[in-house]
């Protein structure tokens, strides 16, 4: 059996396609837990703020810090297991930059901007980050980001107290359902 150059090129192209698909599935599988964790954290944040409204800023800062630390830990553990994965840290740094940007502007704009708009600012900022990351990582992240932003914008048709409930359900729900879907369509090692 002999292989001509065209056939060899087609085979190499086929290999590259499957490798890209497998890396995407591995990334989906690996991100699943991170998304579910953020969903649970966001739901806890809304729950705690409901009971301690005066400590809202501290609660959200603590939630963001806990989420970033847990994400960094998950990525570090994964990197230890898979020495050749290199892109994860850049994602964590991007997430940390977005969190710092969102927290700073929330602090500065909080006293001026109407509260209902502040419910949407940070979540839509993170979802925008997910959309942008999705342009490189996989189309599911783009879809998840757009669905999340659309649901958040739709929430502004409601008024208090339904608005807060809507935001809590939509923001945590998008992350949890998205995370579960990632786990189902991805591959874990």
């Amino acid at each position, binding site marked *: 059996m002999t292989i*001509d150059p065209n056939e060899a090129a087609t*085979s190499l192209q*086929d290999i590259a396609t*499957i*490798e890209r698909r497998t890396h995407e*599935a591995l990334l989906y599988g690996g991100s699943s837990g991170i998304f579910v964790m953020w969903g649970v954290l966001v739901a806890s944040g809304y729950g705690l703020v409901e009971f301690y409204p005066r400590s809202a800023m501290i609660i959200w800062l603590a939630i963001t810090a806990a989420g970033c630390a847990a994400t960094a830990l998950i990525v570090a553990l994964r990197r230890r*297991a898979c020495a050749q994965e290199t892109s994860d840290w850049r994602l964590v740094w991007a997430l940390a930059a977005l969190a710092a940007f969102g927290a700073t502007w929330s602090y500065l704009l909080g006293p001026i901007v109407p509260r209902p708009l502040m419910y949407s600012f940070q979540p839509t900022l993170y979802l925008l980050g997910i959309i942008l990351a999705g342009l490189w990582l996989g189309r599911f992240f783009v879809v998840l980001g757009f669905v999340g932003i659309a649901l958040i914008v739709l929430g502004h048709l409601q008024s208090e107290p339904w608005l807060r409930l809507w935001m809590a359900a939509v923001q945590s729900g998008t992350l949890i359902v998205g995370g579960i879907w990632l786990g189902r369509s991805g*591959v874990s090692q």
Partner: protein
Amino acid sequence: MSGVNEVIHQAMRLRIMAALNAMSLKKAAIEFTRLKALVGATDGNLGAHLETLERAGYIVIEKRFEERKPQTRVRMSPAGRRAFAEHVAYLREIIDSAGA
């Protein structure tokens, strides 16, 4: 230039080996249904090609029960990893020698 590996070169088996080789952990196993989706195979087709690869010693098939459901997991053996790397090198050599 080493010769063509006919076990690996078949289109579906090449895809299976590419998917298993792309797993970042050396001993990582992938579930049958996930592998089927990745390479675009049918149940019967994938099963037959996996058997061929297993007979050649390139993959290891593990069968176990998870939550009372039978689960088949597939992983690449060190021999399979070596053979795949050699086959890819062979394909590149063909292209390089054609371009020279």
